[in-house]
C-alpha cells in the first residue's frame, strides 16, 4: 500500500467503510420497496445482526465468515416472525409492525447486561476490512441488477403496481413478499455485523427509529426503479454530513431539505430511470 493511501485510510477509513455499509443498507431497503412494501424495521434487523455478530466474535471467538452468516440468519428469523402475520395485510401494517419491533429490540438491548445494556457493547475487533465490505456490496448489487432484469424483476414490478393483477397472472404474491422481506432482513443484519466490526462499538440507540428513517431516505433519494438508486442515495446522504461539516448543527437540516426537494421534484429519486426487465 502506498504511504499516501495509508494516510488517507487512517484519516477517512471508517468514513469510507461506512459508505459501503450504508449502501448495503440501501439495498436492503430496495429489496422490500421494489415490491411496494414499506418496512421500517431495517434498523432493527441491522441491530440484531450487529449484536449477534458482536456476541459471537467477542464471547465465543467464532471465525468472521461464520459470524457474518449468523448475523444474516438471526434477523431473517425475526423477519419471518413479523412477516407471517403482517404480510397478508396491505397498506401500512408492515410499517407499523416493524416500527414497534424496533422499539421492542431497543428496550431489550438496554435491559440485557450480557450485551452491555445501556452502555453498549465495546471492544469488538476490527475485522471488517474495506475489501470485504466493498466486495460484498459489489456481489449484492450485481445480484440485484441481475434479478431486476429477469422474471424476478417483472414479478417485483407487477406486485408493486397492482397486486391483484399480479395474482391473476399467476404470481405467488405472498411468497415473493415473504422472501424479499427475509432477504432484506439478512442484508440489514450483514450491514450491522460489518458496521460493528469496524466501529468496534455498538449501542442500543444506534438502531432506533432515526436510523430506520435514514435508511428509508437512502432509497427515496436515489429512487427504487433500479438497485443503483439506493446505493447512490446512501453514498450522497452519508457523504453530505462530512462535506457539510462547516455548517455545524445545520447539517441535518440540509439533509432533510434535500429529501423534501427530491420528493417534490424527483418523485422517482435522482436515478429514476426505467430499467429493461427482459434478459
Amino acid at each position, binding site marked *: 500500500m502506498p504511504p499516501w493511501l495509508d494516510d488517507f485510510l487512517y484519516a477517512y477509513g471508517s468514513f469510507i467503510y461506512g459508505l459501503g455499509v450504508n449502501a448495503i443498507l440501501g439495498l436492503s431497503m430496495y429489496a422490500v420497496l421494489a415490491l411496494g412494501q414499506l418496512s421500517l424495521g431495517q434498523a432493527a434487523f441491522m441491530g440484531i445482526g450487529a449484536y449477534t455478530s458482536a456476541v459471537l466474535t467477542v464471547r465465543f471467538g467464532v471465525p468472521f465468515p461464520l459470524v457474518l452468516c449468523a448475523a444474516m440468519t438471526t434477523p431473517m428469523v425475526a423477519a419471518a416472525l413479523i412477516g407471517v402475520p403482517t404480510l397478508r395485510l396491505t397498506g401500512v401494517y408492515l410499517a407499523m409492525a416493524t416500527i414497534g419491533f424496533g422499539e421492542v429490540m431497543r428496550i431489550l438491548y438496554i435491559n440485557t447486561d450480557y450485551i452491555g445494556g445501556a452502555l453498549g457493547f465495546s471492544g469488538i475487533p476490527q475485522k471488517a476490512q474495506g475489501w470485504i465490505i466493498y466486495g460484498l456490496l459489489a456481489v449484492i448489487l450485481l*445480484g440485484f441488477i*441481475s*434479478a431486476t432484469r*429477469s*422474471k*424476478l424483476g*417483472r*414479478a417485483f*414490478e*407487477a406486485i408493486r*403496481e*397492482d397486486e*391483484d*393483477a*399480479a*395474482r*391473476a*397472472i*399467476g*404470481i*405467488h*404474491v*405472498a411468497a415473493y413478499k415473504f*422472501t424479499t422481506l427475509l432477504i432484506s432482513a439478512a442484508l440489514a443484519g450483514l450491514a450491522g455485523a460489518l458496521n460493528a466490526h469496524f466501529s468496534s462499538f455498538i449501542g442500543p440507540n444506534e438502531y432506533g427509529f432515526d436510523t430506520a428513517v435514514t435508511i428509508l431516505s437512502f432509497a427515496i433519494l436515489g429512487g427504487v426503479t433500479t438497485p443503483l438508486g439506493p446505493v447512490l442515495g446512501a453514498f450522497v446522504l452519508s457523504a453530505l454530513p462530512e462535506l457539510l461539516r462547516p455548517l455545524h448543527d445545520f447539517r441535518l437540516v440540509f439533509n432533510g431539505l434535500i429529501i423534501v426537494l427530491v420528493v417534490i421534484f424527483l418523485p422517482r429519486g435522482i436515478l429514476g430511470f*426505467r430499467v*429493461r*426487465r*427482459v*434478459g
Partner: protein
Amino acid sequence: MSEPLLEVARITCRFAGLVAVDDLSFVVAPGSVHALIGPNGAGKTTLFNLISGLQRPNQGSIRFRDRDITALRPYARVALGLGRTFQNLRLFGEMTVLENVLAGRHVRLGVSWPATVLRLGAARSEEWAAIERARELLRFVKLEDQQEQLASSLAYGDQRRLEIARALATDPKLLLLDEPAAGMNPTETAALAALLQSLRGGGLTILLIEHDMNFVMGLCDRLTVLNFGRKIAEGTPSEIRVHPAVIEAYLGGSYRAQAQAEGAA
C-alpha cells in the same frame, strides 16, 4: 355432452349483508364460448373473482378440470389453466408491452431464482423461449410494432388487446374476459370478435361478461343470465333472446318489442 371444464356448484358470496352471488350453479363446456350477462350489480364480476380466486365464497364449490379448486390460491389456479382479464384495465403501466406479456408468462417459467440471478444456461434459454412466445402473442393481437412502448401509452383498444395477450401468455385452458369490448369503437369491437373467434378455433374455452348484445349474441354458444346474484335463465342465444324473464330484467322494453316483431315476422 362431455365433462364440463368448469363447474360452479351452489356458490354464495356475501359482503357485509349484501348477497353478491346467491346459490349460483352453472357449467362451462370445453371448447365453448359462454357468456354471463345481467344488469350492473348482478354479481358477474364477483363471480369472476370467485372463479379466479381473488375472492373466497361463503358457500359452494368450484371445480376446474376435474379438480376442486375452491380452496386454491389464485396463482395455483392460473397454473392449472385459468386466465383472466379485468373490467377496468389492470395493466402494468410502467412496464413495456413486451414486459407485460412476459409477466403473464411468469407462471410457466420454472427455473429457480438462484439460477435466474446467476443467469445459468437454463435461465437464459427459458427467458429466450419466453420472449419468442411473447412476440408470437403480440403478433397475434397485432401489437408487435408497439412492443417497446410503455403499456400506459397505448390507445385504449390496444390496451384491451394487450391484457388479453398477457392472459394468453399464462397458457390458459379457460379464459375469463370481463367486458372485453367495453369502451371499444365498432371497428375495434369487430377486430376483437375476430380475435376471439380464432381463439375458439384454436380450442380455447372462453367465459365472458359483456354488455354489448350484438357482440355477445354473435359470438357465444351459451349464455347464463344473472340478476341480483341469481341465475334467472340459461340457454343458447336464440333461446335467451325470447326468454321472458331475461327480457324483463335486462334487455328491456324496446328489445321486447323488437323480439315480438321478429317473432311475428
